[in-house]
């Protein structure tokens, strides 16, 4: 049968063509693929994440994203996807379940990460061995709903992430507010703990969870019993209105950046924060304000 399909409106092909050209100019290396699209039929390449082989050993993308090539390994990174950890990543998570000798932590991953009882700093010295008493009072350390900053330590056989919180910078999080952004936006950098000039403390979790808070007073280096107590404290400090407003402003700046799908690091946050000072906090998520502050910040960034 002779069938011809006429669409009421021709799909806008021209747009994507233009972009493909732009890509080549950018570096030639950045290739955009869609699910089901052939990446290469060259047999010398190995397939990585986000790809599959069909019967003729053609490498085909299974996600929409950018092609990344490391030597012979080809993988496709989806721009928006759940967090897949790497060892050494700093993450922010929420306790979802208290299980025997472990906690389950939601870290925006494909399944909950696991924090073993043996992987936290226990009161009475870092090196102390856990005992049965600790097992019985696990909720004293972390209960369901608590926020925690942690580091990816290992992977379990079923793919679950193993976390640890040993170290002075890792602790239960309080005095602040959580912002969730796409995990791809948070880049790996030297430090993920920042004290911004405005007096707000940030934990940039690589999983896209960002904790914005009033800095915890006390000497983080000290290992004495009082500090350990504070590590597991559930009580917020007194936060005054100015501090609250700063925290809220930083939160909204983060949300604005996420909305524009821009990379998030301490510098851009500071620039955005500065640009946002013209506006009241409550207006920051209005569309034109978002456009204005983020473009101002990114402009400043490229000026450097």
């Amino acid at each position, binding site marked *: 049968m002779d069938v011809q399909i006429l669409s009421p409106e021709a799909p806008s092909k021209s747009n994507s063509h233009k972009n493909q050209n732009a890509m080549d100019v950018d570096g030639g290396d950045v290739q955009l693929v869609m699910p089901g699209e052939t990446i290469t039929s060259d047999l010398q390449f190995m397939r990585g994440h986000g790809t599959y082989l069909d019967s003729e050993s053609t490498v085909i993308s299974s*996600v*929409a994203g950018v092609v990344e090539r490391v030597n012979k390994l080809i993988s496709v990174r989806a*721009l928006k996807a*759940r967090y897949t950890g790497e060892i050494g990543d700093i993450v922010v998570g929420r306790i979802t379940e208290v299980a025997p000798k472990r906690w389950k932590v939601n870290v925006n991953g494909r*399944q909950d990460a696991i924090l073993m009882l043996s992987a936290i700093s226990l009161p009475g010295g870092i090196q102390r061995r856990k005992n049965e008493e600790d097992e019985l009072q696990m909720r004293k350390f972390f209960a369901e709903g608590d926020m925690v900053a942690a580091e990816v330590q290992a992977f379990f056989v079923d793919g679950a992430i193993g976390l640890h919180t040993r170290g002075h910078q890792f602790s239960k999080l309080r005095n602040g507010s959580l912002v969730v952004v796409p995990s791809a936006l948070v880049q790996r950098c030297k430090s993920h703990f920042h004290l911004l000039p405005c007096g707000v403390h940030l934990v940039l979790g690589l999983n896209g969870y960002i904790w914005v808070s009033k800095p915890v007073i006390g000497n983080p280096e000290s290992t004495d019993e009082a500090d350990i107590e504070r590590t597991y404290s559930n009580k917020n400090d007194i936060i005054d209105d100015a501090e609250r407003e700063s925290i809220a402003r930083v939160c909204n700046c983060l949300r604005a950046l996420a909305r524009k*799908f821009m990379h998030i690091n301490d510098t851009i946050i500071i620039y955005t924060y500065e640009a946002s000072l013209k506006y009241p906090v409550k207006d920051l998520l209005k569309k034109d304000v978002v456009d204005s502050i983020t473009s101002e910040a990114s402009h400043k960034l490229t000026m450097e």
Partner: protein
Amino acid sequence: MSRLELLTPEGLRVDGRRPNELRKIIAKTSVLAQADGSAYIEQGNTKVLAAVYGPQEVRHRMQILHDRAIINVEFNVAPFSTSERKKRSKNDKYDNGIKLQTSQFPRSQIDIYLQVLQHDGGTLQACINAATMALIDAGIPMIDYVCASTAGCIDKQPVLDLNYLEESSDSPELTVAILPRTGKVNLMSMESRLHVDMLESVASLATEGCEQIHTILDAVVRDTTQHLKDSLMQ
């Protein structure tokens, strides 16, 4: 006989399309901030919103599968979606034949929520297309797009993409979903009777409709991805 004339002698349908034409399609992805992936599609006046959550921890431990993910699909028709408001009937569940690489996510679950906002025929196809886009938006690996399209048969003439009027006038409606790259058929569903002689031409018309939809969806997803990538590169 007051039956509507669905096909005029000059070969136009009630809304002015020719038999082999799709309705106007408007599609968008990433329309919801909360969901991992989301999409909105309008095929004519059929409007569907899809949201995907996951892969994430399985909510009921009983359901955990150790070798792959479980998929929940919830389908909901808004009470205001049809021309006449109706009481909500119980949820229909469609197995919408989406090809996922679920083995990559053992012990997790993917939730797909489909909400029909307005109903003007071809709900199943619109749902499948919306779900495909939402899954891609969520970065969940798939073999390929799953594109769906309907075709029916009016007066022995195969017609593409029936609207509600054509659907409800007793013409058979076949929904076909394919993987455009290989042309494999994922789903063929029909709830009415169609003469077997007509099946082939109707199915091939629906398949060509799927391919047409694929180019439209692909352009939309590509644009969105490009846009995200450009933002990141800045």
